[in-house]
């Protein structure tokens, strides 16, 4: 896991790194316990007794992919409002109670889920369960808190997207690559939709999605499974399920030719994103394709010895940075992504050509045994390394369950990757990575004019 982004977002890249790195085989079935409450809520407990701590994550099956035009960003705004008070617990109290119990908490919204978590000493778990059960149905959503929090979210959007040229390009890229798939819209929502969001929109959204039969509770740490199950039943068992309308599939319409967009924004550096339409684990008819795509992404960018670093950054020295990623755990058909910043003296057009040459190479020649062996060794090792973090283990279970897969897949991930052959990698490169399925986005920098004003002296005199 590494920190790549700027400013205040340490936790984000962690999660991002998760999404682009392979999940783990943890011999999970031996230590994982699955329960279902009578109201439909799923409970998954994984024992990890290395330290006297626990992480509790509740995952709701709602994210930006459930939204429609006009209310984009609503899932994320609601996530913020979940800290703004229930009938039992006033605004701000949730965070205060977790804090005085030595806990850490946060929440995140993705395309396919919204999740809330607390990390605590394992004896404090009941506190987290009580609070989380309370806000599953008891949220008040006061108007004045909503107005302030909407401003906070708009500041968040400015910070993450408006003032970050690469993020802006990525947002426009998604809007071009996906036509009717819900991945067309940004998780944080379009600014205009945020401005026009109303408290009643949130109330309806909350009523529709926040219920035990739309949630999975994942608990990992130093706990006894059966005792914890009893505890969870005590807090969540009485909450009534709701009747939800079945989800529309919203499958992306078939792309019929290369798409290309340009974004002009104040920036110092050009930047390039390429994305090829690909199936994911949930949607693929042939699951081996997905593992082959996962292998392919690691051949390109699974470390400092992978092709992007070896050939583009070091060998040809045409990229200052270059990466490839593929998220096999997305809920809808997704993309194999390449992105890069040119090295000094290289044009964006040349860099694009070389990135596409990399894809052609994968289509024309089988990858080497050495490369396959390298990725397989890494997957085996990462499988152990990932068990160093209870949070990460809970994330894996939560994502799998929430996008409609099973945590049991964790047990088979390593063997599925190890089964991938060079011929399969070549086949998926030919099958999916063709130009008609390609979208290209280029950031064209506009000049930034910088000037500093220095005003020393007593605070009252510097004119602002």
């Amino acid at each position, binding site marked *: 896991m590494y*920190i*790549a982004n700027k*400013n*205040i*977002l340490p936790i984000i890249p962690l*999660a*991002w790194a998760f999404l*682009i790195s392979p999940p783990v085989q943890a011999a999970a079935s031996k230590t994982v316990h699955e329960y279902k409450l009578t109201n439909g809520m799923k409970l998954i407990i994984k024992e990890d007794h*290395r330290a006297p*701590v626990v992480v509790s994550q509740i995952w709701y099956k709602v994210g930006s992919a459930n939204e429609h035009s006009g209310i984009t960003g609503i899932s994320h705004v609601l996530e*913020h409002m*979940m800290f703004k008070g229930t009938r039992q617990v006033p605004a*701000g109290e949730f965070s*205060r109670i977790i*804090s*005085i*119990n*030595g*806990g850490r908490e946060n*929440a*995140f*919204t993705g395309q396919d889920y919204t999740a809330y978590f607390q990390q605590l*000493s394992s004896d404090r778990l009941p506190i987290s369960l009580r609070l989380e059960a309370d806000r599953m149905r008891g949220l008040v959503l006061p108007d004045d808190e909503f107005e*302030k929090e909407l401003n906070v979210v*708009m*500041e968040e959007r*400015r910070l993450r997207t*408006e*003032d*970050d040229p*690469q993020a802006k390009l990525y*947002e426009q890229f998604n809007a071009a690559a996906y036509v009717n798939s819900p991945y067309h819209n940004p*998780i944080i929502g379009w600014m205009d939709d945020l401005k026009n969001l109303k408290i009643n929109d949130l109330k309806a959204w909350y009523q529709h999605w926040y219920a035990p039969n739309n949630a999975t509770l994942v608990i990992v740490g130093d706990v006894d499974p059966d005792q914890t199950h009893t505890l969870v039943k005590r807090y969540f068992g009485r909450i009534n399920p709701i009747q939800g309308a079945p989800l529309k599939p919203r499958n992306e319409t078939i792309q019929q030719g290369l798409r290309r967009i340009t974004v002009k924004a*104040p*920036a110092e550096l050009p930047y390039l994103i390429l994305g090829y339409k690909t199936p994911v684990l949930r949607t693929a008819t042939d699951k081996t394709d997905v593992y082959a795509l996962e292998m392919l992404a690691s051949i390109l960018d699974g*470390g*400092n*010895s992978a092709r992007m*670093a*070896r050939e583009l950054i*070091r060998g040809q020295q045409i990229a*200052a*940075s270059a990466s490839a*990623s593929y998220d096999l755990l997305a809920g809808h058909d997704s993309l194999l992504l390449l992105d890069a*910043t040119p*090295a000094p003296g290289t044009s964006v057009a040349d860099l694009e050509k070389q990135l596409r040459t990399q894809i052609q190479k994968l289509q024309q020649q089988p990858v080497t045994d050495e490369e396959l062996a*390298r990725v397989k*060794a*890494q997957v*085996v090792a990462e499988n152990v390394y990932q*068990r*160093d973090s209870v949070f990460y283990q809970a994330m894996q279970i939560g994502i799998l369950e929430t996008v409609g897969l099973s945590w049991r897949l964790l047990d088979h991930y390593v063997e599925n990757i190890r089964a991938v052959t060079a011929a399969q990698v070549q086949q998926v490169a030919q099958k999916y990575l063709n130009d008609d399925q390609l979208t290209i986005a280029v950031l064209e920098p506009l000049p*930034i004019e*910088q*000037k500093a*004003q*220095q*005003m*020393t002296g007593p605070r009252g005199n510097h004119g*602002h």
Partner: protein
Amino acid sequence: MAINPTLQPKLTFIHGLRHRILLILALLAPTAGIAGPAIQHWTTSNGVQVYFVPAPDLPMVDVRIVIDAGSARDGQLPGLAFLSNKLIKDGDFGLDADQVATGFERVGARFSTTCYRDMAIIDLRSLTDPELLNPTIQLAAQLVTKPAFQEDSLERERQILLVALQERLQSPSDIANDAFMAALYADHPYATPTEGTVASVKAIKRSDLVTFHNRYYVGRNTTVAIVGALNRATAEKLAWSMVKDIPAGRGAPMLTPLATPPADKTTNNAQIRIQHPSTQTHILIGQPGISYDDADYFPLYVGNHILGGSGLVSRISEEIREKRGLSYSAYSYFNPMRQAGPFVIGLQTRNDQANEAHKVALETIKQFIETGPTVTELEESKQNITGGFPLRLSSNKKIIGMLATIGFYQLPLDYLDTFTTKVDLVSVEMIKEAFTRRVHPEKMATIMVGNLESE
């Protein structure tokens, strides 16, 4: 590495946990002392300090080598420490960068380098299976001992670093940080960015790297931390295999101490506004703060936890975000370093709200210094710090961060064991007294980066 190769993160969080420096702080920030892990310590014959905590549960080992060769040692060439550290990965006289990368990755090992102002870090993570671990250790030892610093490697990394420096200029947050450190530290080595400056990065020669490495990458200037499924004998053997060919050399000289509060008012209370075509103004306010061995460490640490160090619950977040909706992230922190690291208050807000937010932040800190925390605030903060102590040691990764910090800053071996006790001893009066004496809003530097025309 400052270049951001990833696309926008796919998740968006309720709160951003302050600044990225805080991530380091979280790692370094000592914590409460309900007994920590038993730390074993020894010194090798060439002067390397080794710290070890056995962690038998997972068949893996982490090694962190910390050298007192961070950018504070750059001298006249900012970026020198950064490049010396980065180019370790580029091989010795027998292996090139491709072979090095393959050497680690074919056995599933991770090898990385990081450079801060105080520390140059080399991290290694491997499975403990000897067939995988032994070649990993051997390769790492070669690189640490005699990196080649080939001309073509330097040239390539120089170009990449120049791009990274250019990229910093499109980020209002990076621009603010660089200006902030420059304003706070003036002539002190902490003033320049770890990544260096364009002029200096262009000027660095291979011989500079060699000289730097020979001077600083020596036994008496090196700390090794080990956490993993090893016994003491194996850990000793591992540490020795890594460092046995490093000459003892001599430790780096003491860095110039900083007067805190700053003696010269005019150099530190700079008010700097930088025009940038962003929709938000990034605001940083601060002054030099504390070192790890500062006598006021605990009152300031606990006090800041209440002021701006505990996420949504802190006063600054309450005033800026919760009450007024002015910013997504509003925080304060002390970043303890070898010499007084910065005390920072930070936020970002829509350009037209910048002056209002700045005013609220300043009033909040002034008010805090004047009246101190309430008894309840202090109690609740202590409960958070001490109650959350086990979370800070709940993984090998967290433990090795602590271990390396304890070793590098030469903190006592019972540092973790006594931490909660020291936190519990802090009183309202101690916080008020320490903040009054040490924190001076009227002398602080203020940096504002944003679109001034639209304010």
